[in-house]
């Protein structure tokens, strides 16, 4: 399954990229699986996406939670809690 990953604000800076095209292994079925897979990269990925850190997830531009199932072509975004207004 191929997805587009987008990072914003502090996560974009920490990860050193705003977006990437990722080919996910078969065992990554949900948003939670995806976060665990990214966390396994270590370094800033492990730190920023650690359990208990505050970050938000969106799939195809809607807020989503770890239980959300992923499908091929999804646009997945990971970002800090929002601070607009």
């Amino acid at each position, binding site marked *: 399954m191929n997805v587009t990953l*987008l990072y*914003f*604000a*502090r996560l974009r800076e920490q990860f050193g990229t705003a977006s990437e095209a990722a080919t996910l292994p078969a065992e990554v079925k949900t948003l939670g699986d995806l976060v665990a897979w990214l966390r396994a990269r270590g370094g800033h990925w492990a730190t920023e996406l650690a359990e208990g850190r*505050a970050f938000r997830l*969106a799939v195809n*531009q*809607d*807020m989503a939670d770890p239980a959300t199932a992923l499908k091929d072509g999804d646009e997945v*975004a990971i*970002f*800090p*809690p*929002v*601070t*607009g*207004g």
Partner: protein
Amino acid sequence: MKIQVQTAAFDLNAELAALYAANPKVGAVASFLGLVRDVNEGDGVATLTLEHYPGMTEKALARIVEEARSRWDMLDCTVIHRVGELKPTEPIVLVAVASSHRQDAFAACEFVMDYLKTQAPFWKKEMTPDGARWVEARESDDTAAARWQK
């Protein structure tokens, strides 16, 4: 309904007139203007830079406005949020709601602001004497949004 993300400043006279000048059913326009302050968390702020998630931002704001329209008598609504680098005293956001009566306009305007603060993908980075830092989300904003939950 007008929802816009832009770097440019906006003209309040023109934006509010667009809500009421052509519609004599409008008896009330409640509006909110958010501005860059020169101090945050005790530190001086020289500039504020706003980043957003193009596409999702507009979708999230449209959903918030629709939710407000389903709850209150709302004849029209404008949300303009600026992005890019702003200085203290510059407007960041305008939310304006037109209704027949004032209670609906006030409630809907405050609702949209509260949800915008917690649901719309904007992020602020501020330049302080100690360098740049990302603004942390405030728990009080979650509390403010939560009070509207039915």
